[in-house]
């Protein structure tokens, strides 16, 4: 664990040093992220000009969902997706051989090599939105609330990572899988809205099959005081199961890797 974190820190440092050469990219990213944040806020504004609540959530509470959506989206964009892209390219080009021969767990290695530092802008913007939402809701801060929010947010990250890992593993069988990643990223957009408003079949899919909306809604539930200890435990069990299954899928996929140079 400590070793993994150290590796993550080292790789991130290299990526960040590399990116720091291109400072104009920071302003471009800031512009793009602010633009998409503003568009999202306008959309929420338009929806709530017609209704006081959506699926039982007020505008301020929906803002909390949007904040979590943005924050988790930033983590996806900073760490998870860039790593998965490089991994899939490596499979396609046969470069994964170099990773597999290293004396370290391969799943760990392919998960920590990239760090798109400018995308952290989204994490920061997400935190700002969350702060505004919390102020508007006027919640009583409590240790339970902070703990539940932190824990569910972490579980959300693990869930998203596991889903992305399992999907990327498909690259071992089908080399062209970027459409799959695009599809997952657009499914993630469903997380902007409370998962409860979707029709039954879609809600089940977004909770158990591709738990992206679930990953966003649960932390927002924690923050708005809706989360029961039972749901928290259930989510924990589900997260652990998902992480376990994704590791199994990873090993299974690895067996199918044929390499290019060997």
């Amino acid at each position, binding site marked *: 664990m400590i070793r993994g974190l150290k590796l993550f820190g080292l790789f991130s440092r290299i990526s960040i040093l590399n990116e720091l050469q291109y400072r104009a990219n920071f302003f471009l990213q800031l512009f*793009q992220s602010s633009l998409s944040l503003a568009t999202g806020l306008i959309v929420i504004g338009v929806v709530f000009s017609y*209704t006081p609540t959506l699926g039982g959530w007020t505008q301020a509470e929906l803002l909390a969902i949007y904040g979590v959506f943005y924050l988790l989206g930033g983590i996806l964009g900073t760490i998870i997706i860039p790593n998965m892209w490089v991994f899939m390219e490596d499979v396609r080009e046969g470069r994964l051989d170099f990773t597999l021969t290293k004396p370290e767990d391969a799943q760990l290695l392919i998960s920590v090599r990239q760090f798109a530092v400018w995308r952290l802008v989204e994490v920061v913007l997400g935190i700002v939105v969350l702060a505004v939402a919390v102020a508007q809701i006027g919640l009583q801060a409590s240790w339970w609330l902070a703990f539940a929010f932190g824990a569910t947010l972490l579980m959300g990250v693990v869930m998203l990572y596991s889903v992305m890992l399992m999907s990327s593993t498909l690259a071992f069988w089908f080399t062209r899988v970027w459409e799959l990643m695009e599809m997952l990223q657009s499914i993630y*957009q469903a997380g902007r809205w409370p998962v409860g408003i979707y029709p039954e079949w879609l809600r089940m899919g977004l909770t158990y099959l591709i738990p992206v909306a679930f990953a966003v809604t649960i932390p927002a539930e924690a923050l708005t005081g809706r989360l029961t200890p039972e749901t928290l435990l259930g989510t924990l069990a589900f997260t652990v199961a998902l992480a376990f299954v994704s590791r199994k899928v990873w090993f299974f996929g690895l067996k199918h890797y044929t390499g290019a140079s060997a």
Partner: protein
Amino acid sequence: MTQSSSGAQPLRQSSLRDRIDMYVVAARQAIIEQLQYRLANMMFMVHVLIEPVIYLVVWSTVARAQGGEIGGYTAAQFAGYYIIWTLVRQFNLTLGPHNFNWRIKEGRLAAELLRPVHPIQVDLGYYLGFKVPQTLYWLPMGILLWLLFKPEINPEWWQVLAFPFVLILAFFVRFCFMWVLGLVCFWTEKIDALFELYFAAELLFSGRLVPLELMPAWTQSIANFLPFQWTFYFPIEVLLGRVSPVDLGWGVLAQVAWVVGGYSLIMLVWKQAIKRFTAVGG
């Protein structure tokens, strides 16, 4: 060979025919290419469909909560709006920023420039052909959405007849403006921000997000000066059966005007852009 000495006359005579042949070849190439990647295309279709399904769910939830209707749309009419949306999207889909960037960076454009026709003509043929497999892939999804969301649409026969024309014109409008944006790649590689701006504007001013009359009044007045609504809102409303004969006529005129405007803009920018292009190898 013998004709080349007799001047340009014979060439000019056959040029329309050649032009059409060229479109057909480019279109067939698109169809054959896309039919190979069935799984990938189905995934792409899901990627495209998620967006309207989200809007559809949000707005029909709102409509139901507000006693069944907002702004003259019931939940079933919202369903109709967004299901037609998916078909319109298949048609107004055109080449994106990365395609342009790739073309210039890899020097592909050098080869395209050597051809005796403008690259935009080949694109046009290709993307028109692209509509055939796109519509085929759309069909099962459209039927599925229809069964799941039970939409209500009631167009007159003349609205149904007009729809294909309006649809193609919508494609032309969007095709032209994406090409203009694509030309910016000649000046800078970092065009993602620009496209982001375009898509944000499109989302708010085209009816892509929600039927335009539900947007705030200021949005609607700005939208009248922009091409976006003719690529989403107008064709959708035609098939929904909410456009009067007079508005249909004006709408088609507006579409044609935007195509002419967009095309002139392309030609204008192209002249400047092409001067900046240099390629090695290719």
